[in-house]
């Protein structure tokens, strides 16, 4: 059923499904098309050629191609949160309900204010902005640049979060075939028949490449029917994965390819749970690039007018989509393939007004056919200019003698020859090679494992595509060990493909565009050359040629050919710009996949997480961990109140804090002690079994790396902890020391962070509580289990446990650990059994307050630039042994006594608040950099002292005790007088933790 309004739909042609009519709108106007159409073919079926406006001059733009190379048929697809700017109508698969809008125009596509830019184009030449907008200087920020920026870009990004989901997947194969034209299909079949694992991907929704677009015969049947049979065979094989709608966009090291599959782009929106697109990482032992070739236009006057179309595109619209791209055509070519388009035009009932070919002589068959069609033949002629505004109305032709002819037509078909799609063969650094006979670049030296076949390889005849594809497929399979036998090459009809290199009509009267999207004209190329931008890469950057969404697929070779003419160099000596991934643009959503929003990074939960959540804990991100920051009571309205309560609860009673996030590592083996001696600045081999020791580690450059404790459970069994943030880094460092520095030490390292739920139980009543948790007869008295004692025991009635008499808070404290699965039980039991003791849970905020009160260093002090001496641990360093970092820690810059050292600070006005990040300057000096003495690293309101306390680094800290200095914080508008004091604010003798 042909809809009436598809006035340009051809009866009986194409592979669209006429039983499925789809409605769509363009700029709000409703149209109809068929399943199997692209937006472009459906628009053409309805006679719509004007689809957009160009970037700089806002000139009307139409549909130049039928593929992913299109520079001008860009639309905004969909609306609202799903709006997709710059979508190529030529590859947008039509679906029922599709909505598209033209872009870069105001107020409408036909009447666009900024089209005046076109009048100003003599001023807006390439690079004009570098030469102007400089006076007066202040106008740049306020006027010129905002103006330039407003004009930037084409389509508009959605305003809201992308509502669709994206997926990632991995695939492995023996042979990856990129492209499913004649070459790709034969490659896939020959490789697949050998049993190799094959992936065949094509960016289109239909397999077949040009075989669908050309009216050809293979093995006696129509090429589209042949494709169907070939795909039928491939889909029956279990060793083949077919990926339609999938663009291989980049080649990466080690045979890795990036690909994007448009899973649901042909639907109004994805089905529930279905991703919109999927990123494939394909690992291929061998890859066959069978991506075909892209036709290039010829540069002539007004060659950007809607109605100017590539010959191959016209054939696609006729043969694949059954659409007539116009009624009367002028064909302008430089090669047989382009010229032969008159056949397809005529078959579709399009009248051929003229065949203009830059070559002085044409093959007889073509001449004869043109004559038979009644077309005027201009051998050795050119189309100098298109006539018409928003649609081609005619063509200006200059014949071989120089005479001018004007013909009317609504279609100008152009063909300047083909550029193999070999971009991906250069992604890993290869350079393409020039072939004079084809007037094109073809793949040069290929990366390991990659070959090219068919038009991508410069083999343009169908017969050679079929043969080369088959050969490449079996060679690839054989290469990776399959018994690949040569397969029969199907017979194809004959063709001629002569070409002469022709790029640019220099007698054009109007602007002649090289890059249609970025509005780069032949004159711009000449100007750039005149101004010295004559290296291809300079040309590109100065004029922006080839930098638009099509990446110069139809323009860059023309541009460099024109440049070569101007400089008198050959094209290969002129060179070609570097191609980069992606081969065609890929949505950011697909590249991000599912890792966005809350799932941007994994979340790590502590063993007491569920319990803490029940308690209404407020959580904080600590690296990948979620930790309880504090546990507010319903009546507590601010965090400060809660934290003060928690600190007081610990200092006066007992509190429990989940410290399971500490990195934990089992270090075993006869040489474990020796090994740890080399890692820590202090001695660990002398630690008695059943005891723990605080230790510090340096990086090899002498700077503090981490601190923690080491406990010794047996002669050959240590258990060390690291800070939460450094857990992974320290294990990696230990493995390096073990495997690389000292492979002769007999030591085994087992990361065990997740094994243990570990809780600090702290406060004067901690012993009472712990005694109720550990199993009898374990004795927790100070005498039996003193400060820094450790033990393996059981708790909660037979559960394996470890007890450490360690204190971070400065109170009598323990850390008790049970296997993580019992972590929640332990927390609940502690709370239950401690009820009468007034037990409370406390979070990392209270933990932090107490460590600052005690003057323990933490993350802000161990910031990667401080030495052990800087943070007050200088005395811990053993003089009797070597350890990582010892030698370089002795460099003068690190031992200089003027280095800022750790000190404590309290506000002179005890009611004042301290802030970290403030800088210190002398009380009576200007707060300028030259007078800076250090900075505040950690602050807390100390409930124990009733005022704020701070830690920080201060030059000459030892000699400034008691001095009053300024803590200057201009970004927060604060300036506070503080007194320099010892960093230990609370129980400096440590009496409380030894009771």
């Amino acid at each position, binding site marked *: 059923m042909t809809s009436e309004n598809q006035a340009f739909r051809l009866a009986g042609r194409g592979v669209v499904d006429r039983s499925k009519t789809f409605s769509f709108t363009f700029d709000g106007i409703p149209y109809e098309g068929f399943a199997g159409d692209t937006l472009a073919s459906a628009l053409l079926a309805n006679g719509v050629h004007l689809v957009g406006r160009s970037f700089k001059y806002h000139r009307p733009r139409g549909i130049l191609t039928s593929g992913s190379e299109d520079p001008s048929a860009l639309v905004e697809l969909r609306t609202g949160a799903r709006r997709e700017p710059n979508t190529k109508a030529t590859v947008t698969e039509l679906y029922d309900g599709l909505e598209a809008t033209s872009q870069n125009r105001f107020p409408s596509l036909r009447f666009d204010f900024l089209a005046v830019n076109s009048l100003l184009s003599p001023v807006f030449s390439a690079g004009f902005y*570098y030469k102007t907008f*400089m006076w007066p200087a202040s106008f740049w920020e306020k006027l010129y*640049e905002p103006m330039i920026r407003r004009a930037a870009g*084409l389509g508009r990004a959605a305003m809201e979060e992308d509502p669709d989901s994206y997926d990632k997947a991995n695939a492995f194969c023996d042979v990856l075939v990129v492209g499913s034209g004649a070459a790709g299909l034969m490659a896939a079949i020959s490789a697949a028949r050998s049993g190799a694992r094959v992936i065949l991907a094509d960016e289109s929704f239909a397999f077949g490449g040009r075989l669908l677009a050309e009216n050809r015969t293979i093995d006696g049947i129509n090429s589209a029917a042949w494709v169907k049979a070939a795909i039928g065979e491939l889909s029956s094989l279990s060793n083949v994965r077919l990926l339609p709608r999938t663009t291989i966009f980049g080649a990466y090291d080690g045979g890795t390819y990036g690909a994007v599959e448009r899973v649901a782009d042909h639907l109004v929106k994805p089905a529930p749970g279905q991703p919109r697109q999927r990123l494939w990482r394909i690992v291929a032992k061998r890859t066959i690039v069978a991506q075909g070739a892209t036709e290039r236009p010829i540069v002539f006057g007004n060659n950007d007018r809607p109605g100017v179309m590539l010959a191959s595109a016209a054939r696609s619209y006729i043969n694949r989509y059954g659409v007539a791209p116009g009624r009367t055509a002028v064909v302008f070519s430089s090669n047989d393939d382009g010229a032969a388009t008159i056949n397809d035009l005529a078959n579709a009932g399009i009248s051929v007004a003229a065949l203009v070919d830059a070559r002085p002589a044409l093959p007889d068959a073509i001449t004869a056919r043109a004559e038979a069609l009644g077309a005027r033949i201009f051998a050795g002629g050119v189309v100098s200019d298109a006539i018409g505004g928003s649609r081609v109305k005619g063509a200006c032709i200059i014949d071989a003698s120089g005479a001018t002819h004007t013909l009317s037509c609504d279609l100008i078909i152009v063909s300047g020859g083909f550029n193999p799609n070999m971009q991906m063969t250069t992604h890993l650094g290869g350079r393409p090679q020039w072939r004079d006979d084809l007037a094109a670049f073809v793949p040069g030296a290929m990366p390991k494992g990659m070959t090219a076949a068919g038009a991508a390889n410069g083999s343009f005849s169908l017969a050679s595509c079929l043969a080369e594809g088959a050969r490449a497929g079996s060679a690839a399979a054989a290469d990776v060990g399959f018994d690949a036998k040569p397969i029969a090459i199907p017979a194809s009809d004959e063709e001629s493909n002569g070409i002469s290199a022709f790029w640019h009509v220099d007698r054009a009267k109007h602007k002649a565009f090289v890059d249609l999207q970025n509005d780069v004209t032949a004159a711009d190329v000449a100007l750039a050359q*005149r101004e010295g931008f004559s290296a291809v890469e300079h040309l590109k950057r100065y004029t922006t040629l080839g930098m638009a969404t099509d*990446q110069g697929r139809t323009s860059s070779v023309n541009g460099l050919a024109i440049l070569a003419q101007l400089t008198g160099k050959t094209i290969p000596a002129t060179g070609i710009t570097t191609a980069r991934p992606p081969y065609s643009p890929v949505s950011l959503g697909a590249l*991000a996949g599912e890792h966005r929003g809350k799932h*941007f990074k994994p979340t790590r939960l502590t063993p007491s997480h569920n319990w803490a959540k029940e308690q209404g804990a407020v959580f904080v991100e600590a690296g990948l961990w979620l930790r309880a920051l504090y546990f507010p009571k319903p009546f507590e309205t601010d965090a400060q109140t809660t934290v003060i309560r928690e600190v007081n609860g610990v200092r006066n009673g007992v509190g429990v804090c989940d410290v399971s996030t500490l990195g934990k590592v089992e270090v075993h083996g006869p040489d474990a002690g020796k090994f740890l001696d080399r890692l820590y600045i202090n001695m660990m081999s002398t630690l008695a079994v059943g005891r723990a020791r605080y230790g510090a580690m340096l990086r090899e450059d002498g700077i503090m790396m981490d601190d923690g404790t080491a406990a010794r459970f047996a002669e050959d069994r240590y258990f060390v902890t690291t800070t939460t943030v450094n857990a992974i880094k320290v294990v990696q460092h230990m493995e390096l020391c073990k495997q690389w520095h000292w492979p002769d030490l007999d030591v085994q390292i087992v990361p065990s962070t997740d094994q243990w739920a570990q809780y600090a139980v702290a406060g004067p009543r901690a012993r009472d509580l712990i005694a109720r948790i550990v199993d009898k007869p374990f004795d927790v008295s100070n005498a039996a289990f003193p400060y820094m004692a450790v033990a393996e025991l059981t708790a909660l009635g037979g559960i394996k446990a470890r007890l450490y008499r360690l204190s971070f808070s400065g109170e009598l404290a323990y850390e008790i650990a049970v296997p993580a699965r019992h972590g929640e039980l332990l927390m609940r039991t502690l709370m239950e059994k401690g009820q009468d003791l007034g037990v409370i849970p406390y979070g990392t905020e209270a933990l932090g307050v107490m460590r600052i009160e005690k003057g323990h260093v933490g993350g802000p002090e161990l910031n990667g630039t401080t030495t052990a001496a800087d943070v007050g641990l200088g005395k811990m360093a053993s003089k009797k042994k070597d350890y990582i970092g010892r030698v370089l820690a002795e460099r003068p810059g690190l031992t200089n006594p003027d280095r800022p050292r750790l000190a404590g600070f309290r506000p002179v006005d005890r009611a004042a608040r301290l802030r970290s990040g403030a800088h210190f300057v002398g009380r009576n000096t200007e707060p300028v950099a030259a007078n800076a003495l250090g900075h505040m690293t950690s602050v807390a309101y100390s409930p124990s002292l009733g005022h704020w306390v701070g830690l920080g680094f201060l030059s000459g800290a030892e000699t400034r005790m008691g001095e009053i200095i300024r803590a200057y914080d201009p970004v927060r508008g604060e300036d506070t007088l503080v007194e320099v004091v010892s960093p230990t604010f609370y129980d400096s003798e440590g009496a409380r933790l030894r009771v």
Partner: protein
Amino acid sequence: MPSDRYSIFSVLTEALRGQTGWKPAWRKATPKPNYDVVIVGGGGHGLAAAYYLAKRYGLSNVAVIEKGWIGSGNVGRNTTIVRSNYMLPGNIPFYETSMKLWEGLEQDLNYNAMVSQRGVLNLYHSDGQRDAYVRRGNAMRMHGVDAELLDRDAVQRMYPWLNYDNARFPIKGGLLQRRGGTVRHDAVAWGYARGADQHGVDIIENTEVTGFRITNGRIEGVETSRGFVGARKVGLACAGNSSRVASMAGLNLPLESHVLQAFVTEGIKPFIDGVVTFGAGHFYISQSDKGGLVFGGDLDGYNSYAQRGNLPVVEDVIEGGMALMPRIGRVRLLRSWGGIMDMSMDGSPIIDHTPISGLYLNGGWCYGGFKATPAAGLCFAHLIARNEPHAVARAYRLDRFRTGHMVDEKGMGNQPNLH
């Protein structure tokens, strides 16, 4: 009369005569036998150094020797962010000098490199990050540099469409330097080249330095792919190739070459006004005057001399982008590329003498040397002309690692792939 001074008048005049009167922006010079100074490397730094040598230090018998086309290195492939929001006293005055030079660049060069001070905003997501930014902001303010601390609401007013509500690492605020922004990268190279050329500097392209002539510990000139070129002084400004070039003089530098990728999307109508950096994922973004979103992230993480990277980092960077800006999911990546970073062992640069008399080094710029271009050029010129470091570049000594005077903003130590 050819138009060699750029102005609105010359542009209009040329518009009327079909743009035929423009001269090449710089001459295609061929090497002379001898120069006072040869600069190796026609990137931003080499060209700027030559310009200032000629303009400020009166040395015009200068050549810049570039192995490819000028600007083919990192100056032509960076994310164009300029800022002076550093933390350490060794860095702030230097980068602020650079910022001031940027601010007067167009008038100085008579070339519009589109210095665009639309603000650089560093987001923070935790109290610890906030405090580190406060420390930095305060240090800047004490050096007379602008810095503002924004809370979450203020950030939301500037960029309402960032991910505030459904974020793994919620935005808590940011440190803003309003004077920061972007500069049109290629134009920096071209503008300095044109300026240097006008002061008589020879810019010699497609000529590779292949060795050094050194006699009794003194430099005498450079061997090139076009023969020997004599020079009393030679300055290296080879960025990612510094080690390779210095090794020809027998030097082993505290540098590693790493690949950093950058990305641009299809052009879309402007919506990101300034530069935004995402503190919880390695990601920074701005929008170019053409409309492309220009962004980058982490190093690929291995030594490389190939100007390209691999897929995992592409994904990683874009995951950061989507986490921060969920509205860009349907915007498409247009192109990705890589540059070779001369990563130093503390993340800060080196502008100093080498042990070879007359041979000077400008390197170690890591992924932050674009913003430094004017000051690096100036300080390198000063060093070469006066034989002593410029006051604002005194911390950038080559021997600072030996003596333990590192300038390590990030605290990552001698592990350049972690900076």
